[in-house]
């Protein structure tokens, strides 16, 4: 019984970690740019495939560098995100949200097909980076999943410190709060937006890279995680990173319990929980009341 509980808990936290990495970027980007970024699915899937390419290209004598692959690909994804924001998103900031959503969704179509073109339409995978396991109270758990949990915690703490303690973070928060005023204070808001998009995309790319050994990748994998990310941010209330952490935990636990006891409808369960919470609190758990 205890083993089962620990197992469910660990699986839930692991899943929550990935969901948090996915939704944190969405939240930051929404907070500053006021755009719900469908292109996040593209960042996730590019993270997976870049990591795959790096791991495949690495000669065996440098195999200790394998661990840096997700980080490097996250950096690449961030730079691509920067190019996308400067080249395209900048043009449509003043437009209706529906146009913004359509553009970011259009990019996902293009990325998916480019990946099909470059790596083929079948699913890819690499072996586990480490097959070590950890024995905790009778539960044997893969070390790699624990590492992902730790990295997620690291990212969460990093974001906290970034937003609370550094100047960049303060400027980002100020821009999210009141763009006009921040501009009047002499801050280059355009650069803040670009940086935010870079950060957000890079986190999604990191999530993809970390998940490659666990789930593998296939064209369209990003969309599934994107929709779960949407569920998380809708639950959390748009723009709240800390809310996303808690909402991700809820969804992760629901998923883990669901897989254990109601495997037929585990995904449906997530959406139902979301519907229930949004009925009680339409603005999400930590969201400000949406403008009427």
């Amino acid at each position, binding site marked *: 019984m205890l083993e089962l509980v620990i197992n469910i808990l660990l699986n839930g936290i692991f899943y929550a970690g990935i969901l948090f990495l996915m939704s944190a970027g969405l939240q930051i980007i929404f907070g500053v740019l006021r755009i719900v970024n469908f292109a996040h699915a593209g960042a996730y899937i590019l993270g997976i495939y870049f990591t795959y390419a790096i791991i495949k290209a690495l000669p065996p004598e440098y195999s200790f560098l394998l661990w840096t692959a997700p980080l490097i690909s996250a950096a690449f994804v961030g730079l691509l995100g920067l190019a996308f924001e400067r080249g395209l998103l900048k043009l449509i900031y003043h437009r209706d949200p*529906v146009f913004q959503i359509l553009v970011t*969704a*259009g990019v996902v*179509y293009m990325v998916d097909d480019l990946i099909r073109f470059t790596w083929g339409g079948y699913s890819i995978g690499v072996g586990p980076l480490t097959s070590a396991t950890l024995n905790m109270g009778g539960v044997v758990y893969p070390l790699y999943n624990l590492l992902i949990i730790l990295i997620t915690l690291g990212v969460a703490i990093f974001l906290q410190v970034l937003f609370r303690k550094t100047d960049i973070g303060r400027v980002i928060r100020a821009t999210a709060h009141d763009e006009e005023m921040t501009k009047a204070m002499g801050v280059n808001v355009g650069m803040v937006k670009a940086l935010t998009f870079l950060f957000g995309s890079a986190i999604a790319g990191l999530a993809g890279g970390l998940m490659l050994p666990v789930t593998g990748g296939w064209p369209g994998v990003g969309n599934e995680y994107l929709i779960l990310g949407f569920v998380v941010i809708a639950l959390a209330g748009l723009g709240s990173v800390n809310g996303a952490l808690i909402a991700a935990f809820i969804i992760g636990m629901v998923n883990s319990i669901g897989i254990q006891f109601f495997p037929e409808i585990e995904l449906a369960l997530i959406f139902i929980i979301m519907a229930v919470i949004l009925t009680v609190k339409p603005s999400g758990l930590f969201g400000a009341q949406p*403008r009427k």
Partner: protein
Amino acid sequence: MLQRFYRTALIVVLLILITGPIYFPSFVVYLLSYGLIMAIAALALNLLLGYTGLMSFGHGMFIGAGAYTVALMMKYVGIHSFEVLLPLSILISAGLAALVGCFCTRQIEIYFAMVTLAFGELLFVLCSKFYGFTGGTDGIRVKIPTLFGYVFKGSVDFYYFVFSLFLLCALAIWVICNSPFGKAIQAVRDNAQRVEYLGLLVMKYRLIAFIISGAFTGIAGVLMVSLTGHAVPESFQVFTSITIVFMVLLGGHTTFLGPAVGAIVFVFLQAWLKPLFFWQFFLGGAIILLVVFLPGGVLGGIQLWAAKALQRLRS
């Protein structure tokens, strides 16, 4: 002058649509039927997007609801006739819209978009998981239903059926948009707060608009599955929903007939691109180009061009 230009254009297009099957090859007739079916869905979505100002990214769920009403009724009850299936699917789509709308219409703007999207995805998941009942990801094969005992023999007579239903739906949506109710939802779009002060329940109007829109999209679902002969869970999915949104914006969501134009243009564009290996890439590119360079959609562009041409004529 401009009015007369539009009227002439409308009559010409209607004449082409009526006489089309005489000289078009059957493939084009098939595409036209497909386009007109999607046009019903696009007009219905625009009732929400353009007139009420709510962006739904879950309208695929009503296409799916219509399609699966037909498929399940055929498989388990053995009903094969449009005169039963159409009202039934309208009822079911409207019921679904009422249920989902109770959750969604509490939200606005992006929140509304995300919650509708999640509900579409929920139905997709349910539909593909319950393999025994819905056939899972394989979907269900569907024979084309009959109409008062009349069996559709080819693509041409079904085209005329679709065309007449399209006219009927377009007329109905036009009447709704220009009724007092239509004025009220436009007021909700423009300034919800003021409407509330006038003593109207904003949420009620949003909910009713959502239900009407869902019911008409359900009709499109019925026709769609009759045309393709296959109900698949993907029709619930976000890809379908985004496609309908794209059709609306492609045609122009500020005009009444724009979405219908967008749907037909999209269907032909898709048929033209699909033989290319990477048609999704070009679709994404087309979406981006449209948004950046043609904000008013095709019809908005034509209107702009016509107004400019008229001005040049006058001067």
